[in-house]
């Protein structure tokens, strides 16, 4: 029952996503779909790790699934990180550049 209550609270938290303005049932069902879609697709992507190591993929997928399900609602957190203020966009762009550079320099020959 605890998980059910948690999911029920998610719907209440979506109200903040659409403020100002009323929250319609289509919007809430869309956000719930997004929530489930996000969890399932991230877990599914984690299975791709089996091409590196099967054991790693199994452990990682299980841990990811548990962490994601216990940290719902994800969509409000995701949306705050992806609003279009210049600072956040620049920050993520430069972080991505640094990560790609580091990954290529030290890991480019490993794959």
């Amino acid at each position, binding site marked *: 029952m605890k998980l059910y209550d948690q999911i029920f609270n998610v719907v209440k938290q979506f109200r903040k*996503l*659409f403020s100002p*303005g*009323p929250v*319609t049932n*289509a*919007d809430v*069902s*869309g*956000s719930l*779909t*997004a929530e489930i*879609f*996000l969890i*399932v*697709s*991230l877990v*599914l*992507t984690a*299975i*791709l790790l089996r091409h590196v190591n099967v054991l790693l993929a199994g452990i990682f997928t299980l841990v990811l699934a548990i962490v994601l399900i216990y940290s719902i609602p994800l*969509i409000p957190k*995701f*949306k705050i990180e*992806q*609003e*279009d203020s*210049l600072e956040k*966009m*620049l920050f*993520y*762009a*430069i*972080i*991505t*550049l640094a990560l*790609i*550079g580091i*990954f*290529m*320099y030290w*890991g*480019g*020959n490993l*794959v």
Partner: protein
Amino acid sequence: MNELIPLMVIVPLMAALLISAFSKFNTVTKIFAFVVAICLPIIPLLSNYGFHYFGGYEPILDSAVNMMYHPAITYSFTFLQQIFIGAVGLLTFLVIFIYLTKYRKVSGPYLFLLFLGTAAVTAMLLTDDIFHMFVFFEILALAQVGIVAASSIDYSYEMALKYMVLGSIGSPMMLLGIGFLLALTGSVNVTDIAAAVHNGLVDATSPVFLLSLALIFFGWLYASGLPPFHTIKSGIYSKAEPHGAALLQSFTVISMISIVLVMFRIYASLPIFEVLIVFFSILAMILGVSLALTQTDFRRMIGFLAVGELGFIGLGIGLGTNFSITAGLFQALNEIVITALLFIGFGAIVNATNEVDTRKLGGLLAYHPKVAIMLLIGGLAMAGVPPLSGFQSKLMLVQASLSCGFPEISILAIMVSIATFVVFVKTYYTMFLKPKPNDLELEGKEVPKAMIFAMGVLLIIVILLGIFPDVVTNGISNFVGGIL
């Protein structure tokens, strides 16, 4: 008739300059713009396949190492270039037609920007010279900023400035990557660089070569609007005028495929290249569609959907087989047509209601039935419903990833298609089928005829490509066989 190849770039470029110079003669400008816009899709259809060397400098055979060198900027024109330039030319014609019929007094600078963008993407597709491509990429970025800033929507200047600031991070990095390649090979011609890499003249495992891939890849992410640039791309789509947004997304798709094909020719021997592309494509699909599900502004929603669909193109190219690259390029062609149809259709609704919030709309089916039906078919095509064109390319992608041994990616692609369908049906319901809110004024507002005409033309292409996909896929498959 290889003289027609440079004309594909020169005609829109000259038209842009002439129109901005003589924009005070209103009628002459209108007629001239219309004539040039008709020429744009016709020139690539008439031209023969072949090469064009600027300045007439033919390739030189170095007899010592038995390799060809290309001293001139080379334009190569094959079936792939023909079909994409034709598609962009047709779209430019439709957009300019909508613009010319919408306003009595046309603005010269705006037409200048539209033609400049078309010339830039045409040159990016044709060219075989990586620095030439970078120059036209910068011109394209300026044209895109101009198209966004010229719209009358709130916060369009802010969005244009944000795009420019991000662009001045992204494009110098691409230039730095080109500089690394130049330092390694001493050439900027893609054929020469690819030959040097394949013949072992360049050490493919050296850090400089890997860093050049990282930097050009970052520039590609900026050009195509994959994460972390998906927010700004969807933002500029939503702040441009609807017909401008239809053209902007085609510019994005074409700059994406032209840069990725160049990268593919140079870096295909590195396995990590394909890993990077697949990773960012999957990220784009997940983020684009899940953010589209939570939007209430329907232009922003279509923007995020367009970014999500870009992931399919990247996926096809990242898998790296002949069949998957064909599928990815075919998906690119479909996306240009379908997303343009959706942008123009939703733009027609904005035109008729002056409202972008789905919560305040409803009951439009009774007032605009033609637009509603065409939008429905376009949305179904985007979600991949047979027998429309989106179905064919997505089916090819699913088959390709299955035959490469990645069933997870096939399942993910199908899930993203279903989520796209959910997004579309949800928006369609709230806009067209839900009862009309009391305070929504709809009487006496008509959708422009030119928009319905443009949607009709695009819809015919969608249906024809869905029924006869072989017309395009055979030619693309031959092209891909040439670069693998």
